[in-house]
């Protein structure tokens, strides 16, 4: 069964203190791994798609990487506005569907 585990559940950082969020997954053939940001009371906002091991994507202070078992979201010199819940999802090669399987997310708080 496809499964996604995110760690840590919550993370508090000082402004400028870099860190990484982890997403471990098991899936019957990975079609794609997706990172989203979710602010309170809002829907998830798309950040990145990764398709194969070794792939990396960057956007401002965020960098996502992928191996065959996990993905990392690296946050460099975070700012308070980066505070949000970060969700990871996988899409497998199951015939006839493109559903996502989500993890429970990492709640990030960046203190000024």
């Amino acid at each position, binding site marked *: 069964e496809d499964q*996604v585990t995110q760690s840590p559940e919550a993370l508090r950082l000082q402004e400028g203190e870099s860190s990484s969020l982890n997403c471990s997954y098991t899936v019957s053939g990975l*079609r*794609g791994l*997706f990172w*989203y940001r979710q602010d309170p*009371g*809002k*829907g*998830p*906002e*798309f950040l990145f*798609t990764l398709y194969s091991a070794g792939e990396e994507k960057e956007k401002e202070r965020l960098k996502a990487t992928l191996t065959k078992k996990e993905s990392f979201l690296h946050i460099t010199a975070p700012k308070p506005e980066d505070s949000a819940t970060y*969700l990871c*999802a996988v*899409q497998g090669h199951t015939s*006839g*569907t*493109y*559903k*996502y*399987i*989500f*993890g*429970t*997310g990492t709640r990030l708080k960046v203190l000024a």
Partner: protein
Amino acid sequence: GAGVSQTPSNKVTEKGKYVELRCDPISGHTALYWYRQSLGQGPEFLIYFQGTGAADDSGLPNDRFFAVRPEGSVSTLKIQRTERGDSAVYLCASSLNGGYEQFFGPGTRLTVL
């Protein structure tokens, strides 16, 4: 351009009542998805439409839940005989086609009293 929109943003109902939740996808997106998110959890898949047809409804919890997309655009999620356990945020997403990135709406917060 407009994103995914959902109405209503909040819905409060009583146990046993019927509710309808509406989703307007991004124009031109052929794939549409419904998810349900409980507090502190990630979104949980309910149903996936490709065009007008439900390609995968394996996530619907029971036969009280039903969804339609009659013209391949707007979709309605229908819940009969609501229960308190149905309380959650219902999220809709759309993608250009199956397999592409999914873009989410703001959600409908359903509260069953």
